[in-house]
């Protein structure tokens, strides 16, 4: 019998009687990371990796019934041995390793291969069956090294500052914003952040992640000339809102893996698109899958049909898992998960 199956409430482990990232309220929820489409409120018991505690409590409430485990430390529940392993996606993100009756399954949640300094880097875990995401599961998605992207952002910021324009960079407030703060050259000017970003910065700093000093944009006086030299980090939802008025003449950019495509860039209507994702690109997905040594792969949210077919051609036993992940605004600026409905093969 399969160690994990797809149920209307979420991915379910029958042997252990618990769910992984359920999208409907359940008794026991194991959470891979705190993005809204993976960590929902209303569950009776939560289990998550220890570094994710601060974020989870910030997002779901300080009083949730949450138990945590450090990465790598096993816990046995109904005979199922469970442990968390870094997924490299955001602070506290984890792959869930399950072992039962000599069989090992790993549910990866969302993951990224390139280490970024704001969370524990992705660690391949050997298993028989690997549950993988497929957000960027098409060969058109190949990331440049992040240093190159940060250099582009620095350059853009510098050029705007020289022209007395604020540089407003839209990015998801949890994960992407902190990664950018960590990666850019903070000596170029003041850094302002939107009210949605600042609380998460606080959690990152408390967890010992270095972020340069940031100023809460709400505290800056209108027309303060300092803003014309600043880099401003804001969630995509702030775009086009009255909140933007305070910056006067500004240049805007958007940091996301979706910016790889000209169509998405243009649809966003920003001056600059920076291709920066917290998910694995196509080579990354294939590398990670290979590293697990798994012979069976279950594919969730993203380009499910494509990845399943490709893995089958590589000789793996690949199947789809129908989930409701990838519907969160944090992950999906516009469309943009290429096909939840596309569970075909």
């Amino acid at each position: 019998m399969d160690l994990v199956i797809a149920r209307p409430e979420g991915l379910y482990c029958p042997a252990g009687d618990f769910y992984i990232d359920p999208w409907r309220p359940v008794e026991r929820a194991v959470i891979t990371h705190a993005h809204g489409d993976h960590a929902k409120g209303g569950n009776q018991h939560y289990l998550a990796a220890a570094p994710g505690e601060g974020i989870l409590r910030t997002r779901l409430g300080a009083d949730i019934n949450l138990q945590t485990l450090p990465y790598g430390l096993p816990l046995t529940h109904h005979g199922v041995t469970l442990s968390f392993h870094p997924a490299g996606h955001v602070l506290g993100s984890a792959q869930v390793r399950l072992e039962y009756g000599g069989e090992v399954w790993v549910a990866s949640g969302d993951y990224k291969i390139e280490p970024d300094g704001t969370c524990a880097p992705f660690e391949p875990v050997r298993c028989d069956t690997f549950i993988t995401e497929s957000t960027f599961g098409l060969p058109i998605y190949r990331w440049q090294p992040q240093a190159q992207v940060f250099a582009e952002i620095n350059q853009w910021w510098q050029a705007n500052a020289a022209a007395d324009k604020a540089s407003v960079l839209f990015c998801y407030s949890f994960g992407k914003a902190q990664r950018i703060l960590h990666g850019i050259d903070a000596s170029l000017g003041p850094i302002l952040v939107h009210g949605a970003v600042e609380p998460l910065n606080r959690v990152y700093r408390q967890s010992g992640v270095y972020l340069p000093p940031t100023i809460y944009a709400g505290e800056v006086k209108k027309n303060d000339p300092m803003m014309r030299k600043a880099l401003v980090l804001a969630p995509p939802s702030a775009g086009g809102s009255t909140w933007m008025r305070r910056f006067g003449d500004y240049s805007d950019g958007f940091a996301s893996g979706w910016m790889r495509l000209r169509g998405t860039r243009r649809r966003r209507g920003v001056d600059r698109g920076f291709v920066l994702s917290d998910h694995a690109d196509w080579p990354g997905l294939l590398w990670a899958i290979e590293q697990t040594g798994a012979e069976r792969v279950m594919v969730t949210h993203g380009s499910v049909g494509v990845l399943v077919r490709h893995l089958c051609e590589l000789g793996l036993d690949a199947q789809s898992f129908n989930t409701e992940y990838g519907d969160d605004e944090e992950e999906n600026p516009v469309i943009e998960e290429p096909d939840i409905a596309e569970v075909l093969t």
Partner: protein
Amino acid sequence: MKDFALLYAELDATTSSNAKLAAMQHYFAEAAPEDAAWAVYFLSGGRPRQLVPVRILRDLAVAFSGLSVWLFEESYQAVGDLAETISLVLPETSHTSTDGLAVWIEDKLLPLRGAPPEVLAERLPGLWSQLDRPSLMLCIKLITGSFRVGVSKLLVTRALASMAHLDSKRVAQRLVGYTDLSHRPSAASYVKLIAPESSDEHAQRGGQPYPFFLAHALSQPVEQFEALLGPASHWQVEWKWDGIRAQVVKRDGRLWIWSRGEELVTERFPELESLVHCLPDGTVIDGEIVAWKTARPSTEDAFDPQTPAAPAVQPFALLQQRIGRKTLGKKILDEVPVVVLAYDLLEWQGEDWRNQPQVTRRTQLEQVISACANPVLLPSPVLTGEDWFDLARQREASRSLGVEGMMLKARDALYGVGRTKDMGVWWKWKVDPFSVDAVLIYAQRGHGRRASLYSDYTFAVWDAPADASERTLVPFAKAYSGLTDEEMRQVDSIVRKTTVEKFGPVSSVKPSLVFELGFEGIALSKRHKSGIAVRFPRMLRWRQDKTVEEADNLGTLQDLLS
């Protein structure tokens, strides 16, 4: 090549005309004349015929990328643009080519035309590996003839004019025909574009037309016309014809006909050739080419000898049958005869008349037409009304007359360039479109800005009224414009959740969405399942208040036909 790719990226990234203008000025100021010559050509809409068949290009890209065919296809479906897809899946390289745009086009790309597949297979990967990603995408767009970027010819004209300190009308004049297929841009032709004005410039004109003066849409209610436009008597009013806008140029004993896209179309209309004998040299007429004949009498009138039908304008659909043809046989010429409905005189006796007032040009035009006395050249009638309300009443006959509404031209207006208003103004006062409520049944992902978003829809109506015992939805129109970005995102998300089946890129969806579709014309068609073809269909509104059952049926469409 790289500089032009950078310019393309800059133009592509902004929606501000000023930023585009600045980017072009900057490029032209730096570029070598031979490169600038090609840049002007592409920016103002020039497209050499496809250099490499798309199928071969695709096969080579698949082979060179190492992907399986289906995976390449999936990628293409997500990207929605072949050139971009290829640039995204080929191995990434650094830019090593130092050759400019002209060398790339003339020495590397144009020679590919007609080359056998094995030669292409040998050459293309070598060319591709010299270019970074943005240049590669551009290169492939040039190869496939699909280069497009959001600048108008007017904007290119302005960029060149301001750089060369010339009147932009002069540059527009010189640019006419620049993108014609027979013309190959060169350093010399570019230098001519931006050269100081010469006194004998007029004499060098040959068959060149003038830039077309374009109308602005007028959508205010008629009650406001008096306040907006002044009294109706200050305006020359005509029907807005549904045909092909054209200029007829007669100089040096020859006749040229230009379409609004500034394409030379003389050969497409052999029946207009006779005008060469009756128009004097130095005459340029602006008008509309329309299909013109006696409509086949309907059965009721056929036996009524009292009302022989007069020839009249025919639906654009008829004209369209002729536009697509490569060769014009006798049959099609008999079935779809055309005339020019003339409405303006731009040159008379070799003199530029564009700075004469509208009313003066019109008077002279009528004399030219009557002196010409050729049945293929008719005046577009001037309509008179007591006031705007009277004209609005007359305008109600538009549909039955086969016109799109009215044109309002200020009687004292000069003939301007493009969509300008500084010389006077032309308004198009169109009738409201036809509209029906239709159901979305298929969706396909879009291209360009809408790549990977389900934005192209097929709509259906019921084949029977609501009280029929059994009825099905029949597709009758495709539309992809009219929704806001936000609405499109919502529809996209619903399409993804209600997809029933996929046929290649097309998803069939569970019928649940109703839209009010607008269109300009409707005609019987054998090619469509519904038996009906509509013109310029677009979404006017998302009818979230209507259920699928409440959508219209074929009967509604058939009523519109009569």
